[in-house]
């Protein structure tokens, strides 16, 4: 099952094209890092997925084909928007009461237990809480709905390091206990590197890279060697980024040891997720989209059958 699937999804705000022809398929059971520079289209993609915005063109479905924004979709998705919006004048208890009455499912016991563990008093007004407490309260309201898919838009931007850790621990416990699929957006990859096992890199309104982190790291290598030795391969291999500075050139190639054997005199290094993301951001024309292409084809075949 794909938790999010888009086909040629586009969204324009006036003359601004926020998302252009975005095709994507994210399988379930992952913690997805949705990363990209500011203004790349991350929030637009999330808003379309939740149904808070309508596509200008294309389609988006969630949790195995439910149209975004439809009742079955809404019931199984939880979304915490940027800056964790809460009604500031309501107490935690009132917010629990309201959320329980606005949703088909709400685990009151979980919510109260969780807030107790976090030391957040039920009688306190949301507006009087610290940023970390507000974020935890918003997250607790989202998780108490027992979603299958949790979407968090820049969840930790406002939090101090300790609050970040606690916030992330709460999310990870939900993954461990209930197997929730999670999509976290951020323009700071480092925040997500320790948790994410799936990467979606959005840049200039399109999906540039998508795939399992382990696969991406296994299929990308940096080759370092004499400039002449490395340059010969520029046209032949899938080179993401090359810096042919003398005397040593660096070249990030996509391919394993069999498709791109190490040239004589060169060294191959594995790379970190951050290096990979930076290399792709520097080369907007390069792309790595094994996941969606494969999955979209398979789905098309299934539909034909």
């Amino acid at each position, binding site marked *: 099952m794909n938790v999010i699937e888009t086909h040629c999804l586009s969204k324009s705000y006036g003359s601004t094209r926020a998302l252009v022809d975005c095709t994507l398929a994210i399988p379930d059971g992952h913690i997805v890092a949705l990363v990209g520079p500011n203004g790349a289209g991350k929030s637009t993609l999330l808003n379309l997925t939740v149904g808070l915005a309508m596509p200008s063109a294309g389609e988006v479905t969630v949790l195995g084909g439910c149209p975004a924004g439809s009742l079955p979709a809404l019931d199984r998705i939880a979304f915490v928007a940027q800056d964790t919006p809460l009604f500031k004048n309501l107490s935690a208890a009132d917010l629990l009461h309201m959320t329980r009455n606005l949703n088909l499912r709400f685990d009151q016991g979980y919510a109260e237990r969780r807030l107790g563990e976090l030391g957040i008093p039920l009688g306190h007004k949301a507006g009087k809480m610290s940023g970390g407490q507000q974020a935890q309260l918003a997250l607790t309201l989202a998780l108490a709905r027992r979603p299958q898919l949790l979407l968090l838009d820049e969840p930790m931007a406002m939090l101090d390091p300790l609050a970040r850790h606690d916030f*992330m*621990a709460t999310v*990870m416990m939900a993954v461990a*206990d209930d197997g929730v699929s999670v999509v976290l957006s951020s323009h700071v990859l480092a925040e997500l590197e*320790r948790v*994410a096992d799936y990467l979606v890199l959005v840049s200039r309104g399109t999906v540039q890279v998508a795939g399992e982190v382990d696969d991406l790291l296994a299929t990308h290598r940096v080759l370092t060697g004499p400039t002449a030795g490395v340059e010969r391969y520029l046209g032949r291999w899938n080179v993401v980024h090359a810096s042919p500075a003398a005397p040593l050139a660096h070249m990030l190639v996509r391919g394993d040891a069999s498709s791109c054997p190490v040239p004589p005199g060169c060294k191959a290094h594995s790379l970190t997720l951050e290096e990979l993301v930076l290399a792709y951001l520097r080369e907007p024309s390069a792309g790595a989209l094994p996941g969606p292409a494969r999955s979209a084809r398979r789905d098309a075949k299934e539909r034909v059958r």
Partner: protein
Amino acid sequence: MEFRLHLGSGVPPYLQLVQQVEHALRLGTLAPGDQLPKVRDVVAKLAINPNTVSKAYRELELKGLAVGRPGQGTFIEATLDPVSLPELTKLRRSLTSWMATAEAAGLDDHAMTALITSVQHDFRERRGSEGVA
């Protein structure tokens, strides 16, 4: 046993957990029969992906070092031969004499580390290619 995570070390998180267990086995702080921390507890402590912990434990099982018992947890099954003390002393002594030679040749700490890392890399690479051939 408590796990720690070093970000930016370049070592994947799951591998860090595996290495810490192996390290503890070599030092004798973990022994057969000991239970590894429950996945949920590691997740709560480190705020990491539960799949990372499961993957580390699976890796330890594949290496025959640990075994998962359904409903109970993961337990240490075997131990790693600790490097014997006389062997370690000998290796240490030869490395110290190498460092004295290197210093005499004008290498500072950073140059030595760079050389060791580079040779280690070549050594692994050669061993790796021999393994394939």
